[in-house]
């Protein structure tokens, strides 16, 4: 969804050479969990960036399937995969139980993000909004010819 011109100026996305098989498994699994609908290997390939070979995605899905972490979508499209939710449910309960023993730095200090104050929330919202505006402007500019630099911001609400 987001492999467009936004990244062109800021840096290459083609770093998959460094991604090991375990990391790719995580990425594919994360992609399947991030959506409510089953995904085909081609859709996963498109999600993760074009530099990933279709065969690689297929191999990773096979490995995840062997570990019973993904299931083939039975009623839906042929060849599409869903994450195996039943397998994860047990783990989740055990994990929550372990976490509730906290406060413990293993569980707490390593949270990706901690709580936010109102000012902090406003600052982050402003940052993301500004980035979205910049991206839309860049996309518009790319659609036009390079001679006509856009003088006005996109007029959408």
């Amino acid at each position, binding site marked *: 969804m987001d492999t467009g011109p936004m990244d062109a100026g800021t*840096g290459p996305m083609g770093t998959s050479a460094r991604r090991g098989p375990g990391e790719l498994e995580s990425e594919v699994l994360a992609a399947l969990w991030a959506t409510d609908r089953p995904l085909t290997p081609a859709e996963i390939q498109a999600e993760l960036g074009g530099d990933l070979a279709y065969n690689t995605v297929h191999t990773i899905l096979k490995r995840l399937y062997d570990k019973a972490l993904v299931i083939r979508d039975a009623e839906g499209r042929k060849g599409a995969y869903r994450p195996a939710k039943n397998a994860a449910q047990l783990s989740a309960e055990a*994990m929550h139980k372990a976490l509730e023993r906290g406060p413990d730095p*293993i569980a707490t200090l390593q949270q990706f993000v901690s709580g936010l104050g109102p000012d*902090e*929330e406003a600052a982050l919202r402003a940052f993301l909004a500004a980035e979205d505006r910049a991206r839309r402007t860049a996309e518009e500019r790319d659609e036009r010819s390079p001679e006509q630099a856009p003088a006005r911001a996109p007029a959408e609400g």
Partner: protein
Amino acid sequence: MYFAVHLPLLLPLAAVPALRALAPHLAPHRAAWMLAGAAVLLAAISTLALLVLVAMGVSEVPLLAVLGHYTPGGLPGVPGTAPLTACAAVAALAVGLSRTVRRAALHSRGLSDALSYGRGLADDRELVVLPDRSPLAYALPGRPGRIVVSSGMLHALDPAERRALLAHERAHLAGHHHVLLIAAELAAAANPLLHRLLPVLSYAVERSADEAAAAEVGDRTKAAHAVARAALAAHAGGGPHPAALHAGTGPVPQRVAALLAPPPARMPNTHTSRAVAVVVAGLLALGIGACVESVVDLHSAVETAQAAYGESD
């Protein structure tokens, strides 16, 4: 000797502000190792200094003088008030030790929970997804370490942001950040003067993982997005897991700003940062020196007193 032994006890008052001032000038992973290492060192030498004070006080006890074969009436260089100081030192040691033991028990329980949970997964999967709408993500140490993320968090992020999140948690595991955090936490339990190092260490550890995430996606702005969006998602989703609430408001905007700034490797090496580094190194060396000096002096005082006792025989 009697002056030197007090120095390690007072040292955190100068060293902690100096360390806090130096940390932002270092690359985050260096800052994390420096802060954790300094915390453990400062706790160790202050504990050793308390033990020396106890030994000095005990040396004033006449019965021990007889048993230890030295002249009663104290060791040379030890003032008459040493027993009183020793009582205070015993109290400080007892409080510090019991706090440290309690925290250590909590951490070892947490670690064993994490390990047994990891064993229960029965495969080597790196990513464990919790089917939970509330967005959360953390690194779980173990062999192998796991990345635990809720499906709610994955829903909130785009593919590049998910990659940044995974790289961030992976960096926590690869960098053994939980070891640094636990070591520093135990040091602060032993010596409460070190407590103000903990938020700085926690921030350095997060920054270090953020830098790894930025390197993985090859785009600092995208990594900043991931941090900002994850923070907002967690906030909107009723906050992170209740166990995390005691962490209070985190310095997420600072982390975002740091990712938008040039990478730390390109940070200017200013005169100020070099001066602060020299001060920190000097203070730590002074503390070690004072500790060694007071132990050596106590030892030689006992030997002198024993020699005097032998002559008077």
